[in-house]
């Protein structure tokens, strides 16, 4: 089973800190890959808050095609973080031509769009590049979004982190999702590697999504750009969250009501019983069956953790004002934030959404039995 570790901090921290925490939990992953989602940057990237960052991996030919396409569409490179591998290449890590982490300036016609449409234009650009890359397998794009970057590679997380030189000032950031992979298939496709990303939203999951196929069949046909790929059964968790927030316009707290709706007897005394019963019927196609623990980050700097309704995967949240960690195991949390009040650690139960907001001052637990913040 994969191991997950996430940090949310008031002061930028190094992604390597999260990778080291993953290493503490190494019994739970087999060193077959690592994925990082980084956001809310501190270093030089802070100067480009509104400019999309392209993250991915290319061959030299792929990069040439990518450059040509981006130029064609009017995106101009502003800043680039050169990632030069150092030291011995970890076992299983393939030799890559170029790791891309590059800030672009948007063409005027996109920059001038209203927010919703501008966001969609960025999603579409990422998808175009992804599709281009699939043709010759020469471009892999993980994200293309302001103030968000992703690094994914095959190999032992700690070794890969060192090999790619993740410990550097330019990558200091306030929101980090990190996953250490437990490989379940030999042909490792980086698109199957968590965290997953769409329109500023990123989640990672461990466990097995037994309801994957019907959920995928539903999402794929909703006509929402980006609901594609599904190289991993966990990708639907990211898309369901996106659907909740962006398509349905519901708050984060509603996510849990969609993936694991309340049972009838639990709904009985809920103040929004009628609405939630309806929501359960409407969104029944997105009910998950677990066992899963989902950790995610949404635009604005909020981080959360939820469990499936049978509570079969481990997960804990803890920390101190200014620094909180979301971890698969307590040993990861102990490593990352030893000087915290352990009595305040939270292990979410089957009704809980554990949230640390952008102020990073406290952990809040939202139970599904509480009222949802809804506006009609």
């Amino acid at each position, binding site marked *: 089973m994969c191991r997950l570790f996430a940090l949310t901090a008031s002061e930028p921290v190094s992604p390597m800190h999260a990778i080291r925490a993953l290493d503490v939990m190494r019994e739970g992953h087999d060193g077959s890959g690592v994925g990082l989602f980084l956001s809310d940057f501190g270093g030089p990237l802070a100067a480009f808050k509104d400019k999309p960052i392209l993250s991915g991996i290319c061959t030299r030919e792929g990069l040439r095609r990518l450059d040509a396409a981006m130029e064609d569409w009017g995106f101009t490179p502003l800043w680039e973080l050169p990632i030069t591998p150092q030291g011995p290449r970890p076992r299983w890590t393939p030799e890559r031509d170029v790791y891309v982490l590059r800030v672009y300036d948007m063409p005027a016609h996109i920059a001038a769009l209203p927010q919703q449409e501008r966001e969609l234009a960025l999603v579409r650009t990422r998808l175009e590049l992804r599709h281009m890359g699939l043709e010759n397998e020469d471009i892999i794009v993980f994200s293309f979004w302001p103030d968000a970057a992703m690094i994914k590679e095959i190999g032992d997380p700690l070794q890969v982190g060192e090999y790619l030189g993740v410990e550097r000032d330019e990558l200091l950031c306030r929101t980090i999702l990190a996953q250490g992979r437990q490989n379940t298939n030999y042909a490792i496709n980086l698109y199957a590697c968590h965290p997953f990303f769409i329109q500023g939203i990123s989640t990672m999951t461990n466990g097995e999504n037994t309801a994957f196929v019907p959920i995928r069949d539903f999402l794929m046909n909703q006509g929402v750009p980006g609901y594609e790929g599904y190289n991993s059964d966990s990708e639907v968790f990211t898309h369901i969250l996106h659907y909740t927030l962006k*398509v349905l316009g519901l708050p984060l707290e509603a996510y849990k009501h969609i993936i694991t709706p309340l049972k009838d007897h639990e709904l009985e005394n809920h103040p929004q019983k009628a609405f939630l019963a*309806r929501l359960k019927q409407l969104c029944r*196609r997105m009910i998950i069956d677990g066992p899963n623990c989902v950790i995610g980050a949404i635009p604005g700097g909020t981080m959360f953790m939820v469990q499936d309704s049978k509570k079969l995967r481990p997960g804990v949240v803890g920390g101190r004002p200014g620094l909180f960690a979301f971890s698969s195991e307590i040993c990861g949390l102990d490593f990352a934030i030893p000087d915290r009040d352990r009595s305040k650690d939270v292990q979410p139960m089957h009704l809980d959404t554990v949230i640390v907001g952008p102020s990073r001052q406290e952990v809040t637990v939202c139970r599904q039995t509480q009222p949802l913040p809804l506006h009609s």
Partner: protein
Amino acid sequence: MSANTAASPSQLSIKDLPWQIQWREERCTLCGACTSVCPVGAIRLGVFRKREIHAHPSLSTRPKTTWSIRYGIQQCTEPHRACVGCATCTLVCPNDAIMPMHSDEKDKLRMHRNIGGQARTRGGRRNDNESVLDRIKFIRISMLTDPALDAGRHEFDLRTLLGRVLPPQEGVRAALDGGWVPPVREIYPLMIGSMSFGALSPNMWEGLQMGVAYLNEELGMPVRICTGEGGVPPRLLRSRFLKYVILQIASGYFGWDEIIHAIPHMKEDPCAVEIKYGQGAKPGDGGLLMWHKVNQLIAAIRGVPPGVSLPSPPTHQTKYSIEEAVAKMIQSMSMAWGFRVPVYPKISGTTTATSVLNNLTRNPYAAALAIDGEDGGTGAAYNVSMDHMGAPIASNIRDCYLTLCALGKQNEIPLIAGGGIGKNGNLAANAAALIMLGASAVQIGKYAMQAAAGCVGSESDRCNICNIGKCPKGITSQDPRLYRRLDPEKVAERLVDLFVSFDTELKKIVAPLGRSTSLPIGMSDAIGINDKDAADRLQIRYVV
């Protein structure tokens, strides 16, 4: 027949019949129970004369001839009296002296079932024991993440939705802004399909209704039963049990006068209204209740004179196109109950099912689509329709589900699958297979008759005389001497057994697949079949 007379073309020997009666003289006490109970008069008391020759070993003594008279059972060979293999004679024989045996070759009777130019009619199902559903295996066992679910201890929610489910975006808006939202019922995914009061005996109908009420009120299982086209006893219409009932309206509109007049007196809305456009057993034919079964009671409930055959027209009279007819009917039925009751059409399995479905997706009031495959049962139909007409349910449901997926409307119009589910006894496995192919619910009729009332009909053409009112089990007869055999309380008890054991088996199927919080509709990765062509056709995994 004597050896020197002409044989008429339809003069058959016992060997030419599908069922041969084996009678054991040494056991028979000549009580006459079998001959009096036989529903078709296939056996009668036989008087046999026997010549015995007593020859002495010594040549000097002359042999003697004596004659004796014996009594026994004789099988009739006239086509209309051919044994139907029901084994009611066996059931009543106190000495196990008599039993029907199936012929070792195809009978010749089948060429003579048309005496007088009357094509054969019968009840039952398609006479074919094959079932593609039986060959579907559940292969995606959850071994990756432990622990796998425990069918006995985990909490399961296996209910399904009957009613139009809006696209989530629209539905959330409507729910927040207080707009109209179509009625949706949360029901058990195994439904009792339409069997009319009239096709079934009063005792059978009552037994099923009692069983359904018990399942709902005592066991909390929201099982629903469809009336078929034959009206509803007035007391049921005015009772709280109506909420467990799906009222069927078909092209004959039998009983609807009474139903419409009862609306102001109804304590509860019915669960739903099913508009029947077609039936799997006899596509293109309307319902048929033969005159033998139309007694005073049936006639009163249906609003017709007694003693006349009641054929429903093959189509609804208002039908110019299915699109228009369905739209009109759905609209008027919805209106009758103030848009609080889901209304959906039922059609026979057909390659045009996807077109009907496409039409329904554009009709916001269409609450579901029920499809009755070629293996669906009936109380009366032409043999040719039953054996040769209609499309199989598996590919029909799959096509419809994939059509809905492509439209992004999966499960918004629930698909209800019927026709041959459990025909070889594998009820839960067949139902689960259909659900994973894309059905939101499944309907049974024949299986409920077999399990809850002991119907002996089979796809080897056993019994199947439901149409003539002579049902030996009292299930499909309107003759009190016959239906008295059936105790409604016992039917109810067996129906409850059926559902409770089905529920256990369904959990035994879904738990190892890692599913418990919602019915795994369309979980096609869970199933496979050892036939490449079938796998390709159904878009499921080929496994050997």
